[in-house]
């Protein structure tokens, strides 16, 4: 009886002591882990990612399962270029909570870095629709814009437009964001929506040079060169130092002097522009043909030479204009086979593309 009583008393005392020690250990461990984590974060901010990884791992070994530590570790690993390790850390986190928005976002970035774009897209979407501890709406919008920027960089027009449309109404109404939205619509291949956005901005801020520049670019993309010329000119009036718009205006001016499809041109002017186009395409072709052009190309060049030297009466100008334009198109197509393809945004390229349409 006495022994059993003593054993039970000892067990009760030991249990109390164990609980006290365990509580003390937990508290001290948390403090130590937080200290190591802060050290790691400091190192990370200074760009010393290897040291940061080591410290944060030490913190994690003390306080396992701390999601903040694990996420920061993944970010440090990502910053250090250890994408496989970052992926492993993030996978562990997502296995325990697949709805974690921030973790999904970091995983999306890791996937982008690894060139696994389809998976990255999926993780960005999981981040957008996932759980965020604070400022959920703001964070989701930030993720969407990060994805939009990524899609814009990759020139993924359809996916970009798909991301832009839902955010159109939710995006902040400040000038900078609206201007960016207009530019993004333009990048996404939707110049009509871009025109609407820029017009909306100019309605509220008639003197906004960026909006005029954007509107000009949108009109240019819609092949409304006259309107584009007007908007670019307005931009330069408002911001004379805008060199990019000046270059665009130059291209626009050239286009307007070259474009044979413009309304209101006299037959003589139409003929003259067709000859100019033949001359320019011959020059472009000659830059790349080398000493032995193909018989087909040589035939076209000979034909162009004849056309450029021919005397055409006023009565036949319209007829010859059309054959000149055909010849220019054929030469342009043959020129495309060259090792150095023609610049797609040159005035000549734009006119010939328009003709081809």
């Amino acid at each position, binding site marked *: 009886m006495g022994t*059993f009583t003593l054993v039970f008393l000892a067990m009760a005392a030991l249990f109390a002591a*164990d609980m006290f*020690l*365990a509580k*003390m*250990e937990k508290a*001290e461990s948390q403090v130590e882990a937080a200290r190591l984590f802060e050290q790691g974060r400091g190192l990370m901010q200074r760009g010393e990612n290897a040291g940061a990884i080591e410290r944060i791992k030490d913190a994690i*070994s003390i306080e396992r399962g701390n999601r903040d530590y694990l996420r920061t570790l993944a970010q440090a690993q990502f910053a250090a270029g250890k994408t496989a390790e970052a992926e492993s850390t993030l996978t562990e986190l997502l296995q325990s909570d697949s709805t974690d928005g921030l973790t999904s976002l970091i995983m999306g970035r890791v996937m982008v870095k690894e060139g696994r774009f389809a998976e990255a897209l999926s993780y960005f979407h999981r981040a957008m629709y996932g759980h965020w501890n604070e400022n959920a709406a703001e964070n989701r919008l930030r993720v969407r814009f990060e994805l939009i920027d990524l899609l814009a960089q990759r020139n993924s027009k359809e996916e970009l437009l798909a991301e832009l449309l839902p955010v159109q109404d939710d995006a902040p109404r400040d000038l900078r964001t609206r201007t960016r939205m207009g530019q993004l619509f333009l990048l996404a291949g939707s110049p009509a929506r871009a025109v609407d956005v820029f017009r909306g901005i100019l309605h509220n801020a008639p003197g906004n040079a960026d909006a005029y520049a954007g509107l000009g670019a949108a009109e240019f993309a819609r092949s409304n060169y006259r309107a584009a010329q007007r908007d670019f000119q307005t931009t330069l009036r408002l911001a004379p130092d805008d060199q990019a718009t000046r270059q665009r205006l130059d291209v626009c001016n050239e286009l307007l002097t070259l474009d044979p499809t413009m309304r209101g041109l006299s037959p003589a002017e139409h003929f003259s522009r067709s000859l100019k186009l033949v001359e320019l395409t011959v020059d472009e072709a000659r830059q790349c043909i080398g000493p032995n052009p193909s018989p087909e190309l040589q035939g076209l060049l000979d034909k162009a030479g004849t056309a450029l030297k021919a005397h055409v009466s006023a009565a036949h100008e319209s007829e010859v204009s059309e054959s000149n334009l055909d010849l220019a198109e054929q030469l342009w197509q043959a020129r495309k086979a060259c090792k150095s393809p023609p610049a797609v945004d040159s005035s000549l390229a734009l006119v010939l593309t328009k003709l081809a349409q």
Partner: protein
Amino acid sequence: MDSNQRPSRMAKLSRSLDRLRQSEDQLSLVLSLLIGALVGLVVVAFILLTGRLAARMYPAGGSGWRRILVPVLGSLSTGYLLWRYFPFARGSGIPQTRFALFIDDGRILFRTVLGKFFCCSASLASGIALGREGPSVQVGAGLASVIARNLGLNPKQVKALVPAGCAAALAAAFNTPIAAVLFSLEEIMGDLHASVLGSVVLSSATSWMVLHLILGDDPLFHVAGYRAVHPVEFGVYAVLGVVGGLGSVSFVKLLLGLRAWFMRLPKWTACFQPVAGGLTVGLIGYFVPEVLGVGYNHVEKVLNGDIVLKVVVLLAVLKIVATAVCYASGNAGGIFGPALFIGAMMGASVGGVAHTLFPSYTAGPGAYALVGMGTAFAGIVRTPLTSVFMIFEITRDYTIIVPLMISNLIAYFISYKLQKQPIYEALARQEGVHLPTAHSRALAERMQVSEAMRSPSAVLSPDLLITMVLRKMKAGEFDAWPVGDAEGVWGMIRSSELEQAADDGASNQKVAVILREGSRSGHSTTEDPPYVHPDQSLSLALEQMGTSGLNVLPVVSRANVHQLVGIIALDDILNAYGVAKRGSSMEPND
């Protein structure tokens, strides 16, 4: 009313306990649970206390000099306490536990338990490069012993509870309940079929539950999941087995050599000897802090591939030296933890080289560190089965089991070939204690009946008359003879039975009559006669002779117990052991 009920309840409880004490099985069951829970609580306290003490001795950002001063002071103070008050609390605790179990009727003093608990805690917290698991085993065994003796149990019962205490301690210390059971049977008892299995399993499970209740469900090490990358890898794991085996032997030989050297020093130096360990680990730890203490956090780093090749090689070598000096100089602490550390570093070294040479065919160094832990454990402690289960339970990674078995087996074989005595046996022998081992028991069991038995030429027919048999018996040297016919052996008949029959005037009766009468009265050896099989040990035959009081036994077939294949006499057994009388006419039939 209440005051009247209380004594009555107490009396009831007291009576229940008294009844429990009388029922051996029930008592064993209850005590196994009780010991499991108590030992679990004590080991958890030991782990937590050591951890908190260590945190205070080595605060964050502390000076480098602490790494020299603290182990030196720790070993000096605990060395004095061990020498002056707790002489049985030195070292690992495993040989001491086996000593108590096999030589001292399971007697471990409470003072030793206290000494082991506090001295070890202080010693390990100060950075001495030893482990907590061996000491936990002695603490667990000691508590089981103290409880059992205080309950007035007999030595046999005390001895039966000591392995339960060991298993409970190891289950809590390593968080490995299955390996704890296996270790208690494989190393402590030296017999995987020991009858104490039930109580060992119960106490181990109870202790493990207590650990989980207080400290949660974390395994000792968190490791990334590994898998075999290519079949070629098994070759690399075999190489790891060789390296692990050689490393283990080096460690054991160094430790034993140093221990012998320390034991040759003058006696008055005994209380200062541990300082040599403290100073060694301190000096190494000043430059390489990873060597201090048990170093499980560094083991985890290696398991996750976070330490570079050069460092792991250095750590393996330094830890071998530090642990060997710390243990040999008489500090309190075990070698399980260091064995895992050394194994992990050796494994990571082999894995690191292999992965550098064949990156497409091999897993990262972490996988090899994992296998290396088991390899070193099998090589140093020589418990291959325990080591496999231990690594599985420590890491909860099943995929690594097959490479682990390959590597373990090779390391065990090399260790056995190059160092005949297992470490605990060798340590005990250095102290002048010769503990029984599984190997020595196997040797004793090796001589079989078939090697000493003779042909069954002298079988009595049941139709023979008693007078004729008595004449024959007087001429022979046996006090009993097998009786049988064409159907097989009937049983054994003693000369005393025949003489009694003759005295009763039944000399002209047949032997069969005596046998039948004896069978009816229950005095004859006909019913359930003593016998042995040819493949049984001579020691068992001796035991049977002692039980039956016969100096000769029939040897019968296992397929048919009535088929006599020979007889074996006491002289045959003595002759087989080389102690028979010279000039005996009986020749054993091989």
